[in-house]
């Protein structure tokens, strides 16, 4: 894993491209004709008022919803009817608004589960748990401990996640996503419900992940300050339609965005 170079981001090798997708549930149109591209190595933000379709956008990207119209291409290859586990194996990881951790397991185990798609030794090896199986387990444990160090959650690794405070749960969830060694990391409101200090920590982690591991990040976030500081490019959704797309400065001064979402500073 190496950090992306300036050329990567600027030259824009497109990692994910979503073209003209529409998604409707019954009669409700969640997304109408939205196109989005994410370049390798960048931090891309998706913002907009509640109900704009931001989470639905992420859900489409990782295969949870299938759009009725439009095309999606990931790493240059077009995909159709992808299931979430295909997305995972393809290199897409995500976190959730409401922290989808496995409440019955410890923090360590939750992150270890993220390594599942990398595990090779099958049932028979697991039953015997000798030699290669143990070595594999230890190797993955080593990787996971690196992530634990990175996120500074060493002290809580054996705690059942249900008992952790919200902020730490979010960190564990990030760890679990990182354990998948994804090419594209989707974060759904990673800072929701956090205080200032926690937000600063999380921002640093996201930046580190992007710079140190080279992971492309797409995030949904309501804290505009955070979005403007972190992101390379921002897309604004409103009522399922894209109303702006560009650098943070461009978007911040866009009249339509101000009217719909940002408001005017007094």
């Amino acid at each position, binding site marked *: 894993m190496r950090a992306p170079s300036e050329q990567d981001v600027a030259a824009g090798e497109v990692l994910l491209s979503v073209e003209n997708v529409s998604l409707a549930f019954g009669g409700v149109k969640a997304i109408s004709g939205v196109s989005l591209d994410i370049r390798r190595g960048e931090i891309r933000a998706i913002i907009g008022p509640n109900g704009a379709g931001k989470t639905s956008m992420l859900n489409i990207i990782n295969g949870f919803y299938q759009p009725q119209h439009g095309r999606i291409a990931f790493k240059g290859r077009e995909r159709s009817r992808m299931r979430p586990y295909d997305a995972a194996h393809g290199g897409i990881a995500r976190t959730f608004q409401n922290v989808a951790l496995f409440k019955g397991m410890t923090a360590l185990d939750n992150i270890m589960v993220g390594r599942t798609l990398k595990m090779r030794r099958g049932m028979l090896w697991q039953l015997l748990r000798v030699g290669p199986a143990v070595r594999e387990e230890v190797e993955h444990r080593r990787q996971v401990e690196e992530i634990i160090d990175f996120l500074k959650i060493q002290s809580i690794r054996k705690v059942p996640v249900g008992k952790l405070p919200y902020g730490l749960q979010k960190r564990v969830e990030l760890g679990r996503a990182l354990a*998948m060694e994804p090419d594209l990391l989707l974060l759904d409101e990673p800072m929701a419900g956090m205080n200032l200090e926690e937000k600063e920590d999380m921002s640093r982690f996201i930046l580190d992940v992007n710079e140190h591991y080279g992971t492309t990040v797409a995030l949904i976030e309501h804290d505009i300050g955070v979005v403007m500081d972190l992101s390379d490019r921002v897309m604004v959704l409103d009522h399922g339609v894209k109303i702006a797309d560009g650098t943070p400065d461009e978007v911040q001064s866009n009249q339509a965005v101000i009217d719909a979402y940002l408001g005017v500073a007094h």
Partner: protein
Amino acid sequence: MLYREAGQFKTSYIADEAIFPIAQDRWFVIGLIVFAFLGVPLFAGQYLYTEILIPVLILSIAAIGLNILTGYCGQLSLGSGGFMAVGAYAAYNLALRLPGTNIILVFLFAGFMAMLVGILFGLPSLRIKGFYLAVATLASQFFLEWCFARVKWFTNYTPSGSVAVNRIDLFGYPIDTPGKTYILVLAITVVLALAAKNLVRGWIGRMWMAMRDMDIAAEIIGIRPLHAKLSAFAVSSFYIGVAGALWAFLRLGSWEPLAFDVNRSFQVLFMIIIGGLGTILGSFLGAAFIVLLPILLNQLPSWLGIPISTAMISHIEFMLFGAMIVLFLIAEPHGLARLWAIAKEKLRLWPFPY
């Protein structure tokens, strides 16, 4: 003072992931196993073997099986009885039609057949969840029960519907006393329990638990629901099938399909609820509880000095089981295994109060 971890530093991940990371635990369990093999035969009599030890061990295997499916993977199953029957009748038919087959192979075959049936009846779990799945497993239970009662080939066309097996031998060595049966069952149980424990502390166990806790999130991190659920059904049914064959051959000797009816399914379920869902230890504790309680109740009339009819005893048994289930679910949903863990926690701090 006795139960301290201080000074025990785990210097490697392997040590941290051992089954018993604390040295005292390790010695206790090793000691227990040694005692079970060498110490018990010194004083145990027939009653202890046939009425307590052997049933508890065999039912523990079934409980481990159901725990894997329901406790670790979260797929509620009321079909354990039917799978035990598959194991029992598979073993019976193999021993009957290929006499002289090594008994270990017979038991393995039983597990394997149960595994196949388990995978088949596990397929619906891909579409069906929760209570609906429980009802679907009842379909497998009633259907299998009916099969072994009606399809005459399975019971070798006996007019009575019940079958019997002869005393078995292991590589030519006859297993003809309760003591020898006990050692054989104990060995099988230890091997299977160790294998199960290995399985659940590796990535497969974590995968199952992830399916249990939040199957949607599990899918999103790359777990294929098909693989996770069917593997759970497969391993679980294997264990339950082996337990069924052991129960039939080494505990009953002769049996009819009724031995594996829906009440048996509930019995195994109760074992893992009371013992502790999602723990291997709990499977043993629950099995011991379920086996010992009726025995204690049967002694009740003589202790109290009042005559109580056997029918009444069985009614009281039902009441007690029911009450205990409710009690455990309210007070300690994680069963006896959690109580044991809490006791150990207290022991770690003893004699200090906090």
